[in-house]
């Protein structure tokens, strides 16, 4: 029972990380209609900037703003220099250009920092684990990630639904031309939204640093999962990204944790483990297929 609970927490933690990435991706797609493959690069930039700041200063408190600033600025620069020229083009052009950006960023990071992964220590205050239930100790840092992720979700909800900027964002997603006709500077709005998405990706990256290895190509590993989240949740919907991310995080973790064990009880032989591993890594894609079959536009259709 505690094992199940622990795996649920693991799933939740993975889910909020996915949410931070998916929120930006879905906003950018929903509002600007741009497929941004380079979103994972912003995650990498956040992680690298934070890792380097932490290494130079020895303080995680400096690393956080450094990671956020680097990712946010890189995102806005990306929008201003490249993405802005792609709004009117079709998706294939966008995919090509943003794919080129992935190559560009990966190579730049390789040139600057080399291929060996960087190491970030967990801030001392968050090191160790606490017993949240008897027999269930859980790393404090992962709990902190869950807390930050949920706080960001609430913050985004308030921002989108309760503020003037949020109103413009929502309006921009559905009636772009009307918003422009009313005299809103849509270009500025787009840059701001892109920067916000980049900021969230950077936040995910800098939080991932102390757990995972900070390395070139780390963004692409998680990007595919992020796209699955966006598709399951419904393209353009923040709420969809949130629930989609939690569903994908929990389902993926639980399948990985328990499916091989269940299969081992059904069939014997060494293939059970390999089969279990294969099936569990297919799990979220099967889930995506089923969701698309039942609700072709995803679980939460933007602004429906």
């Amino acid at each position, binding site marked *: 029972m505690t*094992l199940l609970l*622990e*795996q649920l927490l*693991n*799933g939740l*933690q*993975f889910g909020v990380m996915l949410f931070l990435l998916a929120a930006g991706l879905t906003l950018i797609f929903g509002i600007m209609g741009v497929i941004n493959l380079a979103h994972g690069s912003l995650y990498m930039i956040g992680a690298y900037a934070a890792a380097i700041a932490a290494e130079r200063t020895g303080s995680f408190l400096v690393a956080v703003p450094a990671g956020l600033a680097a990712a946010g600025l890189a995102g806005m620069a990306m929008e201003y220099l490249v993405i802005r020229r792609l709004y009117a083009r079709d998706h294939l052009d966008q995919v090509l250009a943003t794919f080129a950006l992935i190559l560009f960023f*990966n190579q730049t990071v*390789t040139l600057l920092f*080399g*291929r*060996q*992964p*960087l*190491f970030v220590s*967990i801030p001392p205050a968050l090191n*160790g*684990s606490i017993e949240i239930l008897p027999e269930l*100790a859980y*790393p404090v*840092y*992962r709990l902190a990630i869950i807390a930050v992720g949920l706080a960001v979700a609430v913050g985004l909800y308030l921002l989108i639904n309760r503020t003037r900027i949020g109103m413009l964002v929502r309006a921009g997603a559905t009636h772009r031309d009307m918003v422009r006709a009313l005299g809103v500077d849509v270009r500025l709005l787009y840059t701001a939204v892109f920067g916000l998405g980049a900021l969230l990706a950077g936040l995910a990256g800098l939080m991932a640093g*102390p*757990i*995972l*290895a900070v*390395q*070139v*190509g*780390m963004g*692409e*590993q998680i990007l595919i999962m992020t796209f699955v989240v966006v598709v399951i949740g419904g393209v353009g919907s923040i709420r969809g990204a949130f629930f989609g991310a939690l569903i994908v995080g929990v389902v993926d*973790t639980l399948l*990985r*944790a328990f499916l*091989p064990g269940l299969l081992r009880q059904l069939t014997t032989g*060494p293939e059970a*483990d*390999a089969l*279990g*591993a*294969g099936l569990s*890594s297919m799990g979220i894609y099967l889930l995506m297929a089923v969701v698309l079959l039942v609700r072709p536009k995803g679980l939460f259709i933007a602004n429906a």
Partner: protein
Amino acid sequence: MKFKSLLLALAMTGAALPAGAETPVKIGMITTLSGPGGYLGQDIRDAFKLAIDMEDGKLGGVPVELIVEDDSLKPGQGKQIADRLMKNDGVKLFTGIVFSNVAGATVPDIVDSGAVYVSPNAAPSNFAGKECHRNYFVVSWQNDSLHESAGQNATNLGYKRAFILAPNYQAGKDALAGFKRYFKGEIVGEVYTRLDQTDFAAEMAQIRAADPDVVFQFHPGGLGIAFLRQYQQAGLTGKIPMVLAAPSMDHVTLNAVGEAALGVNVSSHWNADLDNPANKTFMDAWQKAYNRPATYYASQGYDTALLIASALRQTGGKLDDIEAFNAALAKADFQSVRGAFKFGPNQHPVQDWRALRVEKDGDKLVLKTVGTIFTDHGDAYAEQCKL
């Protein structure tokens, strides 16, 4: 008629020229230089280059040209590069592949087209047994051997219940099969992770629930760093000891993981502290050239270059007669940095395996050689190979 004789004359003058004296021998290096596994390929490449530089652009007295291409850990890309190098550049000698899945897609094309492949790392089980090939040589080890040594090491250390994990691909399966072949205790859990997985929280929970004597895991490169750090973060370091094979604990991993690695038992065919003249020469040259810790990938890249050098010296740099070149390679007439080295019947190494332990040397963590696990150890598939 006239045209034909002209051609013949041309061909004859071509043959009369001392072949290889002017045109360097092309060596195609397909390796992984990007992504989390990028530093592995980088070390193989840099060590290979080092051997060439130490001979002023030659190997075995023959000028060589090294063509390096990045496979990005994509099997399809490795295959394409090999095709291109063979067709467009006429490359007949290949090396460099780090990962078994890339090797699986690329090596058959190379050896079936009559070119030679000398592996500095990946050596999946399927190429070691029935499908062994005259043009295929392995300098590193057969995949299983790495993990057989870890299994024997765990048995030697007296562990009874093991939890084992590896990524779900050929080398991962070879790893667990190899470990189980020599581990005499009970396997209480066997988990296959994803090759692109970096978060192992779910696996940590399973390990804690199974409460084994020892954990064996195979996660090369960045994966291993993530695994070990999360092992520490989950509070398992110090509670459940770990036995590893060389790929999961190289010097880069060690530096990145830090204190969490203290006391970990490792098995390897090579270590930086091995006391033999070839290794001293290599380590000195490496430090001078690159000033970073050498991984065992580097040692293998260097050994591969030395082996190729020995064959080029014997054949005078000619690759036209592949059989003669193969025979020269098979002699393994070079001083390996790991000490004793010879080829078994399937052209995979027969070598010694050492027990290493992570210890503190001053305030630095080092991998220290503490004993021998196997001497003259070949692999389990050699018998099935009929060359």
